[in-house]
């Protein structure tokens, strides 16, 4: 087992509506999907965003897509039209989620890297 940032096995995108943030996290390979479901939990996401004082974190699983959708309430400091933050949308926060440490079986990590290599050399 190897500890890596979530960025090593998944990709992500944020969206915002008012003061609510959603972050979709997508496994790079089906073999690491169980890592997402077991380790990218509502409690760990709430802890990751503790400095922004979320009032609720909900997680929706989309097994067909090997994706999970995190909905995090009241962490945008008012949202794009009220925040003082340069990034009022919270668009950069997907990469905060991707810092979350996860423990991954070596074989699954190898499968991810093979997938990324194959994509990188796409004709």
């Amino acid at each position, binding site marked *: 087992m190897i500890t890596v940032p979530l*960025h090593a096995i998944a*990709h*992500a*995108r944020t*969206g*915002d*509506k*008012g003061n*609510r943030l*959603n972050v*979709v996290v*997508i496994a790079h390979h089906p073999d690491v999907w169980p890592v997402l479901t077991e380790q990218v939990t509502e409690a760990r996401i709430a802890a990751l965003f503790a400095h922004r004082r979320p009032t609720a974190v909900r997680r*929706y699983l*989309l097994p*067909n*897509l090997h*994706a999970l*959708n995190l*909905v995090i309430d009241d962490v945008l400091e008012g*949202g*794009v*039209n*009220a925040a*003082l*933050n*340069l990034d009022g949308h919270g668009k950069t926060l997907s990469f905060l989620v991707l810092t979350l440490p996860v423990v991954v079986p070596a074989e699954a990590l190898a499968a991810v890297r093979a997938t*990324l290599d194959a*994509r*990188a050399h796409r*004709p």
Partner: protein
Amino acid sequence: MGPLLVGNGAGFSGDRLDAAEPVVRTLIARGGPAAMTFETLAERTLALGVLARETNPDAGHEPALVPLLRPVLGLCLSAGIPIVGNFGAANPRGAAAAIARLAGELGLGTPRIAVVEGDDVRDVLDDPRIVWEGSARPARPIIAANAYLGAFPIAAALRAGAAIVVTGRIADPALALGPLIAHFGWNEHDLDALAVGTLAGHLLECGAQVTGGYFGDPGVKDVPAPEAIGFPIAEVAADGAITVTKADTPGGLVDRRTVTEQILYEVHDPAAYLTPDVTLDITGVTVAETAPDTVVVRGARGHARPPTLKATVSTEGGFLGEGEISYAGPNALARARLAATTLRARVGALPVRLRIDLLGLQAVLDSDEGARGGPLAPDGEVRVRLAALAEDRATAEAAAREVLSLYCCGPAGGGGVRTAVTRRVATTSALVPRDLVAPRIAMVSP
């Protein structure tokens, strides 16, 4: 009934102005029925349009409307590809007039232009049945209040022969769903079909975000030629398959990853994505790569539409004063922190909401070409940023001025001051009973 091709030429106000033409040329090359969509209306944009219209009655629509349409208007008219856009913003009739003038200037005659109206709900906000976000109507003066309309008025305008349909506030996916309804003849009870069309519209509405834009992560998610990304085209078939591709340009990509990121963009409960026309359920959706830059999406399901329409309500939001100043070289971080504490002491007494950032590690020591001029922090560069939200412009200016005065009064070696004061528009949302909203279409030319 054969498929319809739907292209997108803009995903937000401020998008690339040269994106649409390759989409239209690709639609023409592929042949068959097609439509073009433009999404240029963010939550706050419409309120800015209302403010612009206060000083100029012809303003209030998308400012880049003419440069957006100039490269494609003649191509679309001659190929019979209708154009649908929410670039009407706060003044759809003004936008229609601008398009008619552009057509005249380009020698294209008088195309049939329709406007969709009825989204402005300022007159009904006192109705007690309205449910306000945060449970209360905003105390500040309301600038704009617009309900998200659905796709059926667009479809009606197209069936009446409109070559161009101009809308104000409308659900973003409706821009594609409208032409699909007109093409396939769907009605409001065809829930699974409306769900397919809504998902297609959702995939298209942010332009390049589904074709490699907002995606690149070097070494992890590489995007070919990001300076020339092809904007998206969705082919929607009668059996519910959505085939996502892109314009024939050297740049961008369509694969499982780009499509999956966009499927869930700005979604909350994936079983209940609420739109004016249908409640979209994407929990059963599958994606499959079937050819290079070709992804087939299936499995959207529809449930009954919500009983209310969502409206975005914009109010005066005060004034934001901002100022930035850079420190570089030995002890830069300590001098930046000294500047920050000085600013807090100076601005803290003003009636503002205050934030101070220390931005980045390196900027002003570099050359124009990006050659590094010095080491990284702590002896690198730090940029101090002040942001102060005030009720009035004068207070915001006073806060921003404190950054400027650091030139002579602040720590050693501060430079590159920039200040700005901007009027802010705050937004909230409300759920409005459908009987208070009356969407209507009008042919404004010829």
